[in-house]
Each structure stands twice: as C-alpha cells, then as structure tokens.
C-alpha cells in the first residue's frame, strides 16, 4: 500500500442476515482525488460508504481508511472524516448554527474554535444569514448544504458524500458541485456516490460502476467512455418496415414528429426505460440496419425498441449512411456519448435516477 492511498478495500464484503449486499469488491482511493461510486438503486453504494465511515461492520475482507483498519480504529478514523449521509440527519431540535456547534463538540473541538469554523462554513455555503433558523424551515438544498458544512467542521482529510445532490433542482445541484470542486482544490479527498451520470462526469477523477454488489468497471469518466463507447452515439428507433411499430407508441411519440430533422444535440441526458433485451436477437429492421452500416460501427446495443450504434470513426458519417437507407426511422439522433451508455452496455439495464 502506498502512502497516497487514502482508502484501500480488498475483497470487501457485506452481508445483511446472510444476504450479500457488497460482494468482495476491491478499490483504492488516492489522496486528493474525487472518487465516485456510480450505480443504480440497491447497487451497494451506501453499504460500501457505511463501512468506510465505520458505521456498518465489515463482514469479510479488508478495509483501511487513512492507513487504519476500520475494525481496529473506528474512533481515530472518524475523527478525521466528514460524512454526508444519504438521508439528512441534521438535529431538528437545534438551530442552524447550533447544529454545527454541537456536532463540533463530538469532535472535542473547543467552543471558540468551533464557532469560528462554523461561521466560516456557513458563509462558504451561503447560509450565514440563517444561523438562527430552525432546521426544518430550510429548503432541501439548504439542508443539504448545511449537512455538507457540518461534515467539514472537523477539517476532515476525507469527506464521504452519499448522493450529495439527489432531490435537488439543477440550480441547487450546480451550487453544491461548485463548492465541492473548491473543497477538492483545497486538497480534501472526496468520495461520493451518485446515480447521476452528469455528477460523476463533472466531479470525479475516477469512478467505479457498481451493480448488485459488484464493481463492473473502474476508470476516469473519459477513459470509460473511450474504452466502451467512443465519443458519440447514434440512436435509431423503429422503422416502418419493422414488425414492432406501434407496439409502444408512447415511447417515441415526440420524436416521431420531427423524425429525421431532429437536431443532433437536442436530446438531454435522460433516463431510458430499458428491458433485458440486450441478448435478444435483432428483429428484421435491426438486422437490416446493422448489416448495412456494420463497417461504420465499433459496437451496438438494443435498448428497448431503440438501437444504439457506436460509430467507429465519425458519427456524422454514420448518420448520413443511415439517412440514405430506404427506410423511415421514427427516431434518429446523433448525440454525445455519456456514462449512461457505458452503464447500459455493461449491465444491459438503465440507471434509473
């Protein structure tokens, strides 16, 4: 183990009453990086971070945090950690400032120091005009910021954030991201879990993709895209020569109207209702399309009624080749690749936020 590794997990396993939630995973978090756990509901993200902050006992394997074994030295580890749990657990009986002061006392931080730090943190998170507010009067975004501020009261070397922005609107989310980036610039190591691909892409230097208690893949966001997908994706949906037209009219409804003319970049990252059809043999139109443009592809994936094509070279070239086909597609779209595509490819399922 090099000194740089803030967290080392080897064969880390967690069972709840015999049911495996985390299944022998291995990972290392380096100093000063932002490390992400990305995965759908129930993947085991919270279970993993709960073990890191010495809340859940480890069932098997080895886990060291800041060079200390979680089984042997929980108090020492926790004294140098900041934790933002998935569910806010601010103290509703205490006001905003007092939440930080009382929390500081659990770290044996002298009252004067605690007050100074608390005021700094409240200013950093734009809460300094709310010091005497009752916690349950704060908005969701403010509560989240206060929870993050609380996690920083002991100047932690490592901050663990379990879904820091779930449930926040985009503006509140960006505010939190910005603050987290500034923390990272100050040299704090961040570990975060998320099922927002954008969040992982924006913040993480490295991430692991988790599903059903296992780590499927590990790397930087760009690295993972390059390895599995490429830069762009062409989505192809239905065709009037196909036999499944109309089977699911709602799904491609809006795209149908604009059809071919849809702007390539118009589609925002979105959730895709995918079924386990990855391995289902393509039906007629799909086979046709694949055979016609195969030479332009590095890979493809069936997602529900849509075919995702991963261009070998240029997405534009592939798009033109498809448009030249004598079939009408309900949905034809060139868009940048996202981590969601990586996830879909690895699991055959969507990441549902």
């Amino acid at each position, binding site marked *: 183990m090099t000194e740089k590794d803030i967290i080392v997990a080897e064969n880390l396993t967690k069972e709840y009453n015999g049911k495996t939630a985390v299944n022998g995973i291995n990972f290392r978090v380096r100093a000063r990086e932002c490390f992400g756990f990305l995965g759908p509901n129930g993947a085991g993200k919270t279970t993993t971070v709960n073990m890191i902050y010495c809340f859940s006992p480890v069932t098997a394997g080895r886990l060291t945090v800041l060079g200390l074994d979680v089984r042997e030295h929980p108090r020492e580890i*926790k004294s140098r950690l900041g934790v933002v749990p998935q569910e806010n657990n601010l103290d509703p*009986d205490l006001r905003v400032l*007092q939440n930080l002061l009382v929390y500081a006392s*659990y770290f044996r931080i002298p009252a004067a120091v605690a007050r100074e730090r608390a005021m700094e943190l409240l200013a950093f998170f734009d809460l300094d005009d709310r010091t005497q507010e009752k916690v349950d009067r704060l908005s969701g975004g403010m509560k989240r910021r206060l929870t993050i501020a609380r996690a920083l009261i002991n100047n932690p070397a490592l901050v663990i954030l379990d879904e820091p922005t779930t449930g926040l609107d985009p503006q509140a989310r960006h505010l939190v991201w910005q603050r987290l980036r500034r923390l990272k610039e100050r040299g704090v190591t961040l570990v975060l879990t998320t099922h927002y691909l954008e969040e992982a892409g924006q913040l993480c230097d490295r991430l692991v993709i988790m599903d059903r208690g296992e780590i499927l893949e590990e790397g930087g966001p760009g690295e993972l895209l390059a390895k599995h997908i490429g830069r762009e994706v062409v989505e192809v949906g239905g065709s009037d020569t196909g036999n499944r037209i109309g089977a699911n009219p709602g799904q491609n409804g809006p795209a149908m109207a604009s059809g071919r003319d849809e702007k390539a970049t118009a589609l925002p990252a979105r959730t895709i209702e995918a079924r386990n059809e990855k391995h289902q043999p393509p039906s007629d139109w799909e086979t046709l399309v694949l055979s016609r443009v195969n030479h332009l592809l590095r890979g493809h994936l069936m997602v529900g009624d849509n075919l995702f094509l991963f261009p070998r070279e240029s997405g534009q070239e592939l798009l033109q080749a498809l448009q030249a086909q004598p079939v009408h597609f309900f949905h034809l779209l060139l868009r940048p690749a996202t981590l969601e595509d990586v996830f879909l490819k690895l699991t055959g399922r969507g990441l549902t936020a």
Partner: protein
Amino acid sequence: MRRIDISPLVWQVLRRHLIIFGRNWKVNISFNFFEPLLYIAALGMGLGAYVKPMEGLPYLNFLAPGLVASSAMFATSYECTYGTFVRMEFQKTFQAMVATPVSMDDVITAEILYGAFKSTLYGSVILVVILVLGLVSSPWALLVPPVLAVAGLLFAELSMLWTGLVPNIDNFNYFFSLIMTPLFLFSGVFFPLSGLPRLVREAAWLSPLYHLVNLVRSLVLGQINPGLAWEFIWLLALAVAIFPLPLYLMRRLVIK
C-alpha cells in the same frame, strides 16, 4: 458478549440533550407538575378525607412521598421510550452522532444518563412541592435526589430494554398499560402492600418502584432503618447488572 466501548464523549452527547432540555425546561417541568398535583388534590385531599390513616399517617402525608417516586419513574420512562425512539428512528440523531468519534455505546449511555437526570429532576421538583405543602418532616429528605438518580438509571435501562426489544412507536402504550401502570398501582404509592396476598407482596420486591417508594417515604418521614440501605444497594446492583443489555439491544437496532 462484545467489549463495551464508552468514552468521555458521553458527556458531550448528554450536553446536547441538556441544551435542548434547557431551552424549554419551564414548559416541560410545569407539565410534569400537573399530574402529581392532580393526584394530591383528588386523592390526597379529596378521597383522603374519607380514608382512615395509613401506617399511622393522614392519607395525604402517606401518598405525597409515593408521588415523588412515581413522577420520577414516569418522567424517565417516557424519555427512554418515546424520546429515545424519536431520536433514533425519526430524527436519525444516533446515526449522525456515530459518524463522529462518538460510539454507539456512548450514545446509549448518554440516553440512560439523561433518563436518570429526568428522574432526579422531576422527582425533586415534586419533593419541593410537598415540602411547601408541609408534607416533609425530616432533613433526611436531602438524600432523596441521589436515591432518585440511582432508581432513575434503572428505570431508564428498563424502558430502553422495551425500546430495544419492541422498537415500534405503536407498542409503547402497551409498555405503559402492561408494565408501568401495574407498577404504579401496586408498588405502595397509594396503599401499603401489607394487606395484599403474600404472593403480591413478594413480587413487589422485583418492582424498582416499590423500593424507591419505600426509600423516599422513609427519608421524607425520617423513619430510618438499616433495611433501607439494602434496598438502595439492591437498586444500585440491578442498575449496574442490567446496564450492558440496553447497550447491546440498541446497538443491534441501529447498526446494521
């Protein structure tokens, strides 16, 4: 059983409870005043006028010290069932605390100490009330608060056992109707147990409230005898012996 892991951070957790208590202590205390005062008025003064003296005392004088003991018991058992449960389940306060150097054993120990604090305070408040009413006749009454503290530890632990075993807010009323109310009625608060069948009298020895009532009444009336020391030691010994159990049960509930 596993090693118990307690640190001085217990005092910081207890301090948190006291900060919150301190903010609305006036309201809390006045509500707790109310019920014992009703008993004093209705039973002590009202019913008491028709009741023959008990153990040679006017009924009001007999009843009053018993209410000191029962107020203490109720204050603690509410705190360590409803209060503890709300902090644990709805507010997730325990989970927040144990993300700091505080351990789960620290958290529960602080809950127990806070429970004992409530017994001591609420019992003492009623003691002052009956003092003002002229129902305290001996300076031995000064020993009542420490006795309340020890009994309070025991009440806290027993309530926490229920919370740990039946962690469901809908079931706390069973705790009060099946356990607390019988204790309240058959521990010598309202009448001496000497008139009851032998079995009941012997079972009363298991009731912490029975001993507390004996101790408080004897101290308030200045009827000191060596048997009191044994009762005190019995309460203390039980409190010490039971202590690991709520720690174990609550830990099992919170830590998965």
